[in-house]
Structure formats: structure tokens, C-alpha cells
């Protein structure tokens, strides 16, 4: 197979351990969001960082609006990364929209994955009869309008100067460029796919052991949604952190690290 997934998804590899831990970021950011968490696993695992196509420093030219019109396209990429790097017994650590990407990948290729760590998962953001997703369709429309009108806001992130980490030159270089940048057209499309999707039926197809990490309150993925995911993935555990927001790996990384460690070494 051609080695193109690594470049396409801007793969960064480090760590001294054997078992691979692949970190998949959520909507609106990129692999930089994991930098408070990965140091805790570097000695024991092989860390694989990726950017979804269209985010961070992935190959933006590879953004095919048809392929990425559903999360399946992203799941296919995740599988290709595992295959190309010949990863086995993968622990997939996923945030936000990546949780459903990991769910789709694990349902399609269960033999590749050992465990799923799902931070703030939501299989469906939009309320539907008895199901509470947290949003009405018009809320999602409003988000798209926000992104649309923030054309100038998005492009102002092209060349920020960030203080890097001198111990990890590959990291500093990355940070000295830019991060969480997105082409506005891609951002809009990704937002539509992310917040308009419904993957509730895919949860039952997962056989991989999974941990759901939930914050409270989380306006993006409320507790009810996390519990729904827990109920529908058969071999899953649920932990609620004593912190709010949607990005605990940024705001309370120590809580995220200890939850993952407790789960892996229990």
C-alpha cells in the first residue's frame, strides 16, 4: 500500500511503549489539543497523533466533499492509518465528533482495536422524539451562520506565534506555525456533517471495550447523551468528571489522565 495516510492525516509518532494509543481530535481543533494528556502515556505507550483531513496540518487538498459527507469517510481514514502503521491492539482516544468516528471504525474492524476511550461522545446532537441530543435543527443552522459570518475570524489564525516546547522540537515547530485553523468552506461542511449526523444505530455494533468520559455540565454533549452512549455500547464503562465544559483534556487534564489510567489498569 502507498504510504499516504501518514502525510494525509499529519501523523506524529512518539513514545517508548509498545501498545499504540491513537488520539483523534474533535471538531474545531486539531492534534494540539492532546498535549496536556499525551506526556502521561509516553513511557508506556506508542503515541499516534492525527489530524482529520481538513483540520490542522492535514493535507487539505485531500478534502473530498463527497467522501467526508458522512463520518464514514473519516472512519475509513482512521482504519487506513492503523493499517499503514501496522498498529495492533489499538487504544483509540477520541474527543467529541471523533468518538463516533472511532465507533464506526471499531464496528467495521473490531480486530484492530483493543479499547475505545470516548471523551464527550454524542451519536446525535439533534433532539428526536424521546431522544435528547441537546439541540434543535435551527440551533445547528445558527452555528453554520456563525461560521459563515466569521470568515475573517477563522482566517486570522493563519500565523500565530506560540511558545513551543523545547524538549520536543517536532512539537514546537508545529506550534510555531498555526493550529486549529480550518478553511471556512471545510469548517462549514465539517460542522454540518458533525452536528447533523445520527449514529445512534451504530453504537450497538461496537464489541470493543469502551470508556465514556463525561463532564457536567457540557453544553455540546450533555450527561443524558453520554448515558445514552453508555447504555447502547454493550461493554462500556461510564465516568463523570467533576468538571464542566466540553474539553476536559484541556481544562482538567489530570482528571482525564487518571480516568484513563484507572480504566486501563483496573
Amino acid at each position, binding site marked *: 500500500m502507498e504510504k499516504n495516510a501518514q502525510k494525509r492525516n499529519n501523523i506524529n509518532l512518539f513514545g517508548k511503549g509498545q501498545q499504540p494509543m491513537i488520539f483523534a481530535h474533535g471538531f474545531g481543533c486539531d492534534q494540539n489539543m492532546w498535549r496536556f494528556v499525551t506526556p502521561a502515556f509516553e513511557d508506556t505507550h506508542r503515541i499516534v497523533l492525527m489530524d482529520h483531513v481538513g483540520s490542522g496540518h492535514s493535507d487539505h487538498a485531500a478534502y473530498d466533499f463527497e467522501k467526508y459527507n458522512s463520518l464514514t469517510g473519516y472512519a475509513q481514514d482512521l482504519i487506513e492509518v492503523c493499517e499503514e502503521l501496522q498498529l495492533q491492539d489499538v487504544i483509540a482516544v477520541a474527543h467529541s465528533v471523533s468518538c463516533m468516528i472511532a465507533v464506526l471504525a471499531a464496528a467495521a474492524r473490531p480486530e484492530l482495536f483493543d479499547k475505545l476511550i470516548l471523551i464527550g461522545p454524542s451519536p446525535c446532537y439533534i433532539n428526536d422524539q424521546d431522544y435528547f441530543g441537546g439541540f434543535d435543527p435551527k440551533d445547528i443552522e445558527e452555528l453554520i*451562520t456563525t461560521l459563515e*459570518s466569521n470568515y475573517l475570524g477563522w482566517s486570522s489564525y493563519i500565523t500565530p506565534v506560540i511558545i513551543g516546547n523545547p524538549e520536543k522540537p517536532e512539537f514546537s515547530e508545529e506550534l510555531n506555525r498555526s493550529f486549529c485553523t480550518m478553511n471556512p468552506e471545510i469548517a462549514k461542511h465539517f460542522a454540518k456533517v458533525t452536528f447533523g449526523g445520527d449514529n445512534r444505530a451504530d453504537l450497538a455494533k461496537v464489541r470493543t471495550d469502551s470508556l465514556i468520559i463525561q463532564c457536567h455540565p457540557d453544553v455540546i454533549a450533555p450527561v443524558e447523551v453520554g448515558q445514552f452512549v453508555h447504555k447502547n455500547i454493550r461493554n462500556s464503562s461510564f465516568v463523570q468528571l467533576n468538571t464542566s465544559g466540553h474539553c476536559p483534556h484541556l481544562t482538567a487534564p489530570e482528571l482525564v489522565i487518571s480516568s484513563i489510567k484507572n480504566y486501563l489498569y483496573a
Partner: protein
Amino acid sequence: MTEPIYIEDAEELYQDAPFGYLTMYGNGKILNINNTFLDWMGYNRMEILGQKSFSSLLSIGGRIYLETHIMPILQLRGEIAEINIEFKKKDGTKLPTLINAKKVKKHAMSQPVFRLSVLDISQRKHYELELMKAQKKAEQMVQRLQQINQELEEFAYTASHDLQAPLSTISGLIGLLEKKGMLKHDAKAAKYFSVIKNNTDRMKLMIRDLLEYAKIDGKEPEMLQVSLNEVCDITLEILEEQIHLHQATVIIPELPLVVGDKNQLIRLFQNLIGNSLKYRSESAPRILVEFEEREQEFCFFVKDNGMGFNQSLAPQLFEFMKRLHSHSTIAGTGIGLSACKRIVELHGGIIGATSEEGKGSTFYFTLPKKEIG
């Protein structure tokens, strides 16, 4: 009497600044807010502090944007700048703003604290929306024009191409009529016949030139490194018969390599040298190609000793189907030089001509120096 020194009152500056200010925890809990911002939003202090989180002041779309993009950046970088976000006022109306935010370096709190400055951009937002609308409209217009252009090119090509076949039949039959002596031998018939024949030839020429012209825009030029000496050699081969007929001398020096479409450049030289032959003077044509190397470009000259033209008419030369001579004096369609102009422009150059009646003309054109890529 001297003016007292003006001293800022820090609290008054904060509360009444021409800016909105807000201080919050990373989780959105609001620690402080200034009067200006409260006024804009229509709330009093007690309704906000300890009551509302930052995200509850936003529209839902704005909240998602805050949680998925703004807060992660703020947490990672410690600051954000010029983010456009819309607040929801107490009365439900919206307040478009630009926010800047920075992590507070020193404080006694247990978790990170962030300060935000908020700029009301209601006016600018209107303007921005107008601009976006205009941009969308312009994009649609460009798309429409491109389509119309393409259709026109296709039309010109197809029309002229399809006219060629029946015309060939007509001129073939005219030839046969003449050859087989099938025409009445009276002066009037001969005159009519000659008019028919001339007009048929003229139409043929016009269709050929129109087709050539349509071809220039019909396909993307293939930009490669081209030897202009090779281009000129091929041109001279094509024009060999005419050169011989006019007993012309064509002098071509050593020419540089340029980046261009070979077939188009051949057509360019063919038209220019062909014109020098066509618009000759009494003396045998002497045609000289020269060039000048400049910093950014090459300038090429095709000089002749032909009949020349009145310099004041130079701009008209390159206009589509515009001619200085009538068809009956010198046959032509007025397409050749406008084709030259198109070709040179597609290559990023300019074309022009200088002349004095009876003293020959110089046609010149430039080609930018560039690498292929």
C-alpha cells in the same frame, strides 16, 4: 494658571470604558463585567454575577463555536484576538462583537482566569454582510460569464466549422462549371460569375480565420519551453510558397528560448510575417526579426520594408475584423492581427506596431521571462 495633571481613575476607566470588559473562569463563570457591557446587554450587575455563565450570553450557535474552537485556543495559547461572536441581549436582540481575550497572569484564584475585551461592531457587521452578499453575487456573475463565454466559443467554432462543408461544395461546383465551360459566354454572366467566385473565396477565408481565432480560446494553451528559432523555421516552411512568390528575404537571428504554446507562437509569427508579405511595397520584401532582452521580458520585432500605414491608425489594427484596406484591394478578414493580440495577451505580453506610410512597418510584442512551473 496651569492645567492640573489629568489622572485616570482606574475603577472609572474600567466601568465606563468605551469597550466592554468581562472577566471569567475557563469554565465560563463570570467574575466581573463592566458597566459599558452591562448597558449594551441590557442587564444589571446582579442578573449576571453568580447567575449567568459566559456561554449563556451567546446564541446557541455561538456557544458551540465557543466550546469547540474559542475555548480550546484560549486554553492552549492563553490568548485570542479578533474573534467575531454574537451576544444575545436581554431583550433577545443580537449584539455582534469582536472579542479579544487574554489569560490573567497573576491572581489568587484556584483556576485560570481570562479577561475579555468586547468591541461593538454592529455597523461594521452590516457592512460586512453587504460585502459578503456582493461577493457572492460577483462570484455567481463570473461563473455565468465564464459559461456564456464558453458557449460562445463553442458556437463560433461549430458554426464556422459547419459552414465550411457546404461552402466547399459550392466552390467546388463553381470550379466545375467553369472548367467544363457550362456557362454562357456573355459579358454580364462572366461578371456575375466572377462576383460569385470572389465572394465565395472571401467567405472561405473568413471562415478559416474565424476557426483559427476560435481555436485560440478553445483550449488551454500548453505552456512549455519553446525555441523561437524552431518556431520561425516551421513558420517559414508554412509560408515557403508565398516567400518564393514574392521573392522575399526573411532574416532570422539566433532567438532565445521562451515559455509558451508552440502552436500559438507559430500562428503569431505566421500572421506577422505573412502580413509583411501581403502588405509589401514595390520593392522585394525584406523582413527582419529582431529581439531585445529586458529585465523581466523579451521584446520581439518583425520589421519590413512594405507599404506601411498611417501611425494614427495603429490602435485599430488589432481590433476584431477591422481593416485598413478594402477586401477588393487586398484580400483579408481583419482577424489575423486580433488573433495575434489574443495570443500575446494569453502569454502575458503586449503587442503594438509603428509605421510610416511608404516606409515599412515594425510590429513588436513582448513575452515575459519565466520558468515553467
